[in-house]
């Protein structure tokens, strides 16, 4: 066998070492370890499950998800969908999930915008702006989020005036200790306008891609803005016409001790939004700053020798390269934001964890409740991860 090895001849299956049930064989050891570890885990799982079943039986708690069909019997402060205390537990949990998704989606968008602004502010040459942005980031990152939420809630509840003397910074916007009011639109034409906007956006994206491809092919320049302007005006107008031209702008007005009209954000939702947005924006600002600083300085200098002004250098040369460094940590910050929205239970906003906690306390179905929470969060986390990974692949450098 040694001779065959020395002559570099292929070894046939007859020359392989036979399987030895000996501790010296690493494969045998690996299998033995795995059997031991899996066995221990299975033993522990069996012990826990048998204890649980026994405890559940003693306390007369049924297992299974049948409790979801029972009547809920408790009210929920605010909900996107119709809900009354006579609805089922399942519907209550759905309301909680809708609230969580609503807060997460809005907070995600606002936090990204604010985070990018603060991150770029930290890189500007203006000493005052840099110091202000740095102070903001340091303050936000070193105080726990729960405490920030409690502070915002206390500020809104204690320091803002009552509705009669509400702050009125802009037309139609009122800030008081009962929350924030904004003008709202309603009427059948609103749906038409929204659909018109969505179709216009899709059309603009499609035409932009075709123009980019034709520019690459022929080299001839083309402009997008005339088409974009036309489509953005025509399609929503068509939607408005189709909706019967009924369109009401409802501005909030004082009436008695409170307001009527407009769209109200409860103090809980308002505090949660401000807290989540400012907190996540602080972390995103640091990520954006690190990303932009990771692009080598030679890129700035080369772009400036081409005569590009600073803003165009940032947009055309630096940001595409910086995005590759920015997107993965930003993904985990988005996931953190979704998980942090569960802190709403501390200030009384009825998100998923808060509603499931109430259900848990009322029915005693602890395990099913916890499983629901974990399943919901893992699904949302997975969805956000998949979306961001797709975006990450799109902006990745296609290297030789």
């Amino acid at each position: 066998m040694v001779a065959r090895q020395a002559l570099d001849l292929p070894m046939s299956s007859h020359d392989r070492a036979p399987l030895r049930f000996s501790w010296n064989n690493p494969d045998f050891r690996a299998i033995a370890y795995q059997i031991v570890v899996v066995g221990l885990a299975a033993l522990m799982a069996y012990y826990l499950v048998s204890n649980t079943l026994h405890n559940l039986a003693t306390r007369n708690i049924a297992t299974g998800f049948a409790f979801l069909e029972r009547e809920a019997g408790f009210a929920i402060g605010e909900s996107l969908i119709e809900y009354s205390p006579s609805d089922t537990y399942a519907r209550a949990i759905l309301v909680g999930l809708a609230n969580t998704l609503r807060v997460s989606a809005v907070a995600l968008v606002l936090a990204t915008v604010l985070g990018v602004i603060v991150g770029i502010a930290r890189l500007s040459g203006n000493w005052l702006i840099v110091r202000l942005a740095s102070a903001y980031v340091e303050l936000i990152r070193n105080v726990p989020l729960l405490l920030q939420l409690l502070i915002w809630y206390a500020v809104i509840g204690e320091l803002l005036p009552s509705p009669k003397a509400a702050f009125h910074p802009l037309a139609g916007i009122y800030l008081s200790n009962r929350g924030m009011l904004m003008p709202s639109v309603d009427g059948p034409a609103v749906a038409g306008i929204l659909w018109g906007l969505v179709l216009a956006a899709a059309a603009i994206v499609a035409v932009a891609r075709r123009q980019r491809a034709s520019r690459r092919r022929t080299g001839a320049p083309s402009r997008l803005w005339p088409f974009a302007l036309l489509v953005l005006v025509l399609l929503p107008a068509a939607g408005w016409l189709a909706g019967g031209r009924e369109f009401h702008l409802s501005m909030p007005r004082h009436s008695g001790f409170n307001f009527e009209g407009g769209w109200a954000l409860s103090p809980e939702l308002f505090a949660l939004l401000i807290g989540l947005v400012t907190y996540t924006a602080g972390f995103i600002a640091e990520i954006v700053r690190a990303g932009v600083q990771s692009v080598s300085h030679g890129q700035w200098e080369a772009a400036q020798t081409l005569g590009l002004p600073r803003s165009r250098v940032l947009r055309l040369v630096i940001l595409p390269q910086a995005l590759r460094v920015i997107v993965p940590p930003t993904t985990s910050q988005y996931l953190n934001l979704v998980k942090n929205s569960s802190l709403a239970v501390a200030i009384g906003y009825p998100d998923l964890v808060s509603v499931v906690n109430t259900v848990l306390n009322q029915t005693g179905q602890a395990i099913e409740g916890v499983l629901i929470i974990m399943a919901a969060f893992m699904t949302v986390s997975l969805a956000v991860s998949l979306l961001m990974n797709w975006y990450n692949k799109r902006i990745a450098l296609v290297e030789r």
Partner: protein
Amino acid sequence: MSTTIPTERSALRAPARVRAGLMTRLRQSLFQSPASAVLTILTLWFLLMLAPPLVQWLLVKASFQAPDAQACREAGGACWAFIREKYRLILFGTYPHAEQWRPLLATALLVASIVWTATRRLAGLQIAGLWVFTIVAVATLMWGGFLNLAFVENTRWGGLPLTLILSTFGIAFAFPIGILLALGRRSRMPAIKAMCVAYIELMRGVPLISLLFMSSVMLPLFLPEGFSIDKLLRAQLAIILFAAAYIAEIVRGGLQAIPKGQYEGAESIGLGYWQQTRKIVLPQALKVVIPPLVSTFIALFKDTSLVVIIGIFDLTQAAKAALSDPAWTGFGVEAYLFIGLIYFVFCYSISRYSRSLERDLKR
């Protein structure tokens, strides 16, 4: 004609001044472009509008001493008298009043141990010895029961010492578990790798709040009848298990950074798996990931504030308890700003330390 080059220092001219004067620097930094100038003016205007009312509320109209809540409210500013009245409750929870020097000493011991470990002047064995001493001393001080100290059960612990205990022991015990999980995730044995991956992804995908709920609501169901774990221990367990998953990911990053040559070199001199891990791989991997580990400690310190949800008396809950006194209501902002300041001081110091550590390790 030959010119002589002066060689004595006094004959040489001083170098030209390169650093511009203050006005030039201000102009270049604050007013470089029209947009920059507009931003500067807007920011200054905003600060000038915001600063005087803030200073008025915080300091000028604030009452540092007031007989009761009514007088404080009438003053119109921040009521720091409320903090004077309640600071012992906020800082030490419901620990018996006469014995509060004990949690104070325990806090000082913990902080001193952390600072001394951070100076990195101690060898491994000395660090272990220091921490064994600290754990024993803190346990003795907080629980008491012998050495002439009255026994204080842990339901009465609260405030700052509890926050420090939860976060320090959380990370101390999560550290070895995290290392084992990271090694398991990189293992070539499929069963172990699958279990480690499942655990890490599960723990990282759910919020800490749901884990705390689980530990306070589900753990009693898992245990046999009659056997109960104390609430503080349940919370500590949840924090340890949560932190272990995050530490595992960080250590995994460090393990990936070790070049394959190290593993091969270790194998070539006949070291077994555990020997090579202990002597070659881990020392290098851990050194690389010290900065992210420190930021995990900061995050854990902040996350201990979540135990307020299950009713444990940490710093945040103690503030809430102070606010629930009917004689002193409506001073939430003052109370939360006070503990916000405490958190800020701790976390900011740790993050400055982490930055200086990064600089030192780069060299």
